[in-house]
């Protein structure tokens, strides 16, 4: 009998603590892996000011994130590409939070430092196969890309209009792998987020415009993709507040801090 009483007592305790926990508001984010740094920083700052809010982030990829909002499995979907027409027709809404420049990177030993967007497209579709044709060394060009479904790949191929035609030599599964591979092969070319670049690779200028924060902000640099919040229903409560915070003037220093460029709607 005593045992039973203790059990009941324990159960009530657990139930009770569950109740007090449920006061915590929850914001669930789901989507683009490329936006990890951005939403990580934003939610950290937001949670410092609003400790009663819990923000969770599932890095599943843009497509999966959009699908998750559609199916009401998260509050805000994260996408590093614009919504397609049919997705908008399905009732989804997009809000640009920041802009990300996709850098075209080569090995630092490569003498070439500028290409036109057409040349980049020709290289990745296999029309130009040797650096010699572009005034570089006599070396076969090695194309390093990302795996199918990657937001960076999608962004790059959409802007260069090379969808489904890229003749990759390697398809790697992370930005870090792409940078490591390009830095260890003098004839390689690849693409990666501007914020991830270090000194081990050289970012090319496109159409004479260097890949840096200034030129992306001025919308002069060609290879730019948006980082987007995807929503379905009207947001309310904590998720509404987090959404407002992310698009407010207050978020600007943090967006810049992670190497992204602030969009004019802030």
């Amino acid at each position, binding site marked *: 009998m005593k045992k039973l009483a203790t059990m009941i007592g324990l159960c009530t305790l657990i139930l009770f603590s569950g109740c007090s926990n449920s006061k915590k508001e929850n914001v669930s984010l789901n989507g683009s892996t490329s936006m990890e740094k951005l939403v990580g920083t934003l939610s950290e700052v937001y949670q410092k000011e609003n400790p009663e809010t819990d923000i969770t982030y599932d890095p*599943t990829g843009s497509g*999966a994130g959009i699908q998750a909002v559609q199916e009401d499995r998260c509050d805000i979907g994260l996408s590093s590409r614009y919504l397609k027409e049919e997705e908008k027709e399905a009732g989804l809404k997009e809000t640009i939070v920041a802009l990300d420049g996709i850098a075209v990177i080569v090995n630092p030993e490569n003498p070439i430092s500028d290409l036109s967007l057409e040349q980049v497209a020709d290289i990745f579709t296999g029309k130009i196969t040797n650096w010699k044709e572009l005034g570089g060394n006599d070396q076969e060009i*090695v194309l390093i890309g990302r*795996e*199918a479904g990657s937001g960076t790949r999608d962004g790059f191929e959409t802007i260069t209009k090379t969808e489904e035609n890229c003749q990759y030599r*390697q*398809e790697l599964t992370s930005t870090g792998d792409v940078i490591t*591979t390009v830095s260890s*092969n003098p004839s390689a070319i690849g693409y990666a987020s501007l914020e991830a670049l270090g000194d081990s690779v050289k970012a090319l200028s496109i159409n004479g415009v260097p890949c840096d924060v200034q030129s992306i902000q001025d919308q002069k640099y060609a290879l730019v993709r948006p980082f987007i919040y995807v929503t379905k229903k009207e947001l309310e409560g904590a998720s509404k507040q987090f959404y407002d915070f992310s698009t407010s003037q207050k978020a600007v220093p943090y967006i810049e801090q992670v190497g992204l460029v602030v969009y004019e709607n802030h």
Partner: protein
Amino acid sequence: MKTIKNKTIEQIASWIFFAIGMITILCVLVITLYLISSGLPAIQKIGLKEFLFSSTWNSTGSDPKFGILPFILTSLYGTLGALLLAVPVGIGCAIYLSKFAPPALKRCLLMGIQVLAGIPSVVFGLVGMVVLVPWIRSMFHLSDGACLLSAMIVLAIMILPSVVNVSLNALDAVPSEYEEASIALGATKLETVRKVSFPAARSGILASIILGTGRAIGEAMAVIMVSGNVANMPNMFQSVRFLTTAISSEMSYASGLQKEALFSIALVLFVFILLTNTILSKLMKEVQSNDSH
């Protein structure tokens, strides 16, 4: 009274162990059933022949293609290549350690092999990516070194410790009387190893190969970093994709039929591993029954 109590305790204990034993079986059952139920729909939609024998994989294209022949062949060749590289070296190493090496050196080498066995696969991949791949590139004058050969070499190094360890145990277990008798009959040490120790230990050596095969087929992490990961038909110096890496590289983004097809690949991989294991253990049984005659 006491014996009855003991009996009940024994009964209870046996139930508990039965339940624990059942957990393993249950895991296998759940995984098998899940793989079959989630892997079959895509095969039905795509068609078994198209899925297994067509050579184009383009899962995200506007006209998606789901042919996994390149993955199957790559996994097959990659595993065979790794075995070809690792088995002679591994068995040679085991013979040296068991029959020729001085005890102090043997301890030293064994420690090295144990360390090699403990290295996580991602480290093999990383070292392969920064050291092996550029080396292959300059060695064979390729434009890029990420290829089937690199993957074979990395896999070979990864399975080497299993091959050495298990073969070594088998060779150490050969009764010394056999070898002493052979030497007493005038055979040299080398002849003794070749004609007495090796045949006596061969079922254990075969077991080491089975273990190595299993590890090589199932490896994904190290392979994805050195093989280039493009769905080409297998070629020694071309970028290739394995069954395992086909699943892991697309899983995080996949949806719809693409995701179902990835589960089908998992099912194929599962069947593939079951088949090789069955064939190899059949072979081993045959060897063992020959031994006992």
